[in-house]
């Protein structure tokens, strides 16, 4: 406990690296610290090293370099079965030759728990995931969603304080997914457990987590609560990866503290907030969320820069309208407007002027 600076950290990765083949680093210099009770999601494209991190935490892979600490103690040399970490696998890994109840009582049996105590805990766990009546069935006789619940119950039944979940909802349909997201979140909150959750579905990450770690290429690109992540992405990867995003490329022409002017490649200029640009003349990529783009002049600040845009396509989506524009040579520029009674439906082919608040427009790295 003494060797860590932050005493509230429950799970800690410190300068962790991992390589499978001795040539490529799959995880590069991972630093992460989680307080007890947090629901942290690792989000990232396929192959970005999420599962690898989870496996190192669970003890099935060893870190090539660095230290992983659980509750202040380094666990690098503790075998997986002594770590007491609950885990829900991507394919559930329910033991096919055991019934649901046997699956659940397995972790209790290996902990040499008495029979009556075991039964009580198994029943409680089954009740928790609302599967009380299914104890006698085999995993193969359950639907995907039911198997998922059992896997969750099994990871929780031995009262692990830390539960790892590797894309637990990957195989479910949309409706069930949403329902299970809610269930998992509810159970995690009720039990007060710490959860590391892996997904590459950003909606899932945003709706469930206390904090989200966006992975790319073995590096955490940003670690922040969902709203920060969405509204204040720190680099263009995060901006692109989380939610829908419009980008325009250009060069910084003026720096004024917390605002800057960017000249786009077709010559027009716009106001932006500099995030990771620092000097005039630097290339940048500005990012604007579709719902923050305004074409109604009354709602724009009078001194803001505006851009000319051509309406390419109008898509009716029920609750919102989605309009595709051509702006500064980019014809994939999307704006979203609410389907309100007084809302204007833009005609394809018409010319309009668009603008936004400088704080909604973020000048990020050009990479």
């Amino acid at each position, binding site marked *: 406990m003494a060797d860590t600076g932050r005493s509230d950290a429950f799970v800690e990765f410190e300068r962790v690296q991992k390589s499978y083949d001795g040539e490529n680093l799959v995880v590069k210099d991972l630093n992460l610290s989680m307080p007890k009770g947090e629901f942290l999601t690792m989000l990232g494209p396929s192959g970005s090293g999420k599962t690898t991190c989870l496996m190192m935490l669970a003890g099935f892979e060893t870190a090539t370099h660095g230290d992983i600490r659980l509750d202040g103690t380094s666990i690098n040399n503790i075998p997986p079965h002594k*770590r007491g970490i609950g885990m829900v*696998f991507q*394919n559930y*890994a329910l*033991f096919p030759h055991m019934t649901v109840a046997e699956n659940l009582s397995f972790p209790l049996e*290996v902990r040499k728990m008495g029979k009556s105590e075991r039964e009580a805990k198994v029943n409680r766990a089954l009740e928790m995931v609302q599967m009380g009546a299914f104890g006698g069935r085999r995993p193969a006789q359950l639907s995907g969603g039911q198997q998922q619940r059992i896997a969750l119950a099994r990871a929780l039944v031995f009262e692990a304080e830390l539960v790892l979940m590797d894309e637990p909802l990957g195989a479910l349909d949309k409706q069930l997914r949403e329902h299970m997201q809610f269930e998992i979140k509810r159970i995690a909150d009720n039990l007060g457990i710490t959860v590391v959750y892996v997904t590459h579905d950003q909606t899932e990450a945003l709706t469930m987590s206390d904090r989200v770690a966006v992975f790319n290429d073995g590096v955490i690109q940003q670690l922040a609560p969902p709203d920060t992540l969405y509204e204040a992405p720190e680099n263009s990867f995060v901006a692109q990866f989380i939610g829908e995003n419009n980008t325009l490329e250009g060069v910084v022409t003026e720096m004024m503290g917390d605002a800057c002017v960017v000249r786009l490649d077709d010559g027009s200029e716009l106001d932006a907030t500099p995030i990771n640009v620092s000097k005039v003349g630097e290339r940048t990529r500005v990012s604007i969320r579709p719902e923050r783009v305004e074409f109604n002049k009354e709602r724009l600040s009078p001194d803001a820069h505006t851009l000319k845009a051509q309406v390419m396509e109008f898509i009716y989506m029920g609750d919102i309208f989605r309009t595709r524009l051509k702006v500064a040579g980019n014809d994939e520029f999307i704006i979203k407007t609410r389907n309100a009674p007084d809302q204007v439906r833009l005609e394809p082919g018409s010319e309009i002027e668009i603008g936004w608040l400088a704080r909604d427009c973020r000048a990020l790295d050009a990479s």
Partner: protein
Amino acid sequence: MSDATSSGPMLAADGTPLKTSLARSLRMRKLRALMLIAPLLLFVLITFIAPILQMLLRSVENQIVSDTLPETVVALEQWDATTGDIPGEFAFEAIYLDLAIAVEQKLHTRLGSRLNYEETGMASLFRKSGRRIGRFDTDVYTDQFTDLNAAWEDPETWYEIFGDERNVAELPLVGRSWQRWAALFEAEGETVGKRDLEDFLFAALHYETRQDRYITSENPLLLQAMRAQSETPFETSRLIPQFEDADEDWLDHAVWQTIKTYSPRYTSGYFLNAIDMEKSPEGAVAKPENLQIYIKLFWRTLFMSLVITGSCILLGYPVAWILANLPSRSANLLLILVLLPFWTSLLVRTSAWKVMLQDQGVINNVLVWIGLVAENDRLALINNQTGTIIAMTHILLPFMILPLYSVMKTISPSYLRAAKSLGATNWTAFWRVYFPQSVPGIGAGSILVFILAIGYYITPEIVGGTSGIFISNRIAYHISSSLNWGLAAALGAILLVLVLGLYWCYDKIVGIDNVKLGG
């Protein structure tokens, strides 16, 4: 599902009950599918099932006695074997006629060898008697009949009299003998022609015309012969002394006993023999201790097959596990090593073991060299059960490894990980989670190895000596050396039943759907 709605059963569009029309359409589909596979099915039936049925039949078939000795079989019906006396002259007369024809047909030696399976000495008895039977002095009858009327010398006379079925019915012995004899020539497309009539025909004629009996036939020759004999009985030729002269075993009660016991067309004799029993007047009894071999051999075959299966599991499981957990490139290489033995001849592999295991062989030499075994105390590894078990385990090992491998290949490593993350040690994770999932592979491998082992033949023959041979070696012996196919068939049938029985037990205990060859 039930269709018990208030409106009764569901109806299809044309008004027939849905179930009926579903069944009809399914039946059509099945029929079409069956027609597609019909040629193959027929082929399998003919080439696979038919020989098995034929073999089963052969194990109870016993036509040869009643076909070769029909008159004797009839005659012996009147003989009570339990008295301990041999039958009287009447039986010798019958067997004389039968043998005379059998000698013509050259069937008497075959019958001898058949009966020799049941009673040693029968083969030589029939062979010897066959040689002597032509020299019996039954020609007295020939002379007396031809003296009485020269017409008897002419085959035409016989054709005329015994071409008439009514006469055959009234004088069956001579009638049937004549017909069988004449049939011998007719089968070759000729008639008796001017051939000399054999003495035994006149003997038969005498046996049936010697007593005065009423016949409806008006044939003057027959009537004359009967009248003449009732006035002055013919000079006779007693058969018992002549048979005794040919081979005194004819006075042995056991010989007659055997013929009588094996006269029915179907016999349980082969099966009794196959379980170390024999027929006796008191029914089936166990053979003397020193002649009992088959039961012991069956037990040994079973026991050794189990030991071989067990050692295949012990050796094959780790190998399959390594195979399933290696990266696929090295796994393929290893798999080739596992399959390598299949590319060399079975005989070569077995002979190699002979070289390895012998007294002065590689293994013993190494053991002596290390000092584990004393020079004058070398291990007996061959020509006994040890040799058979070692060699057969090696030969059958791939049949265990392959199904195990293909089953293990399908067990996701995430199960082991899951078990460990739930707190199980490596051993518990293996034993409680991995092993049960690999049981179907063990089952499939064991069935394969066991069934192959129980019928194995070449390897025990070469390395088994006398104490390491299997029942199949006895079967092979009876097929190719002793030519006792009936016994071989009976042993084979018992083996088949045994295997099916074990299979049934396996199904009851483990469940046959618990067997996986892969996927």
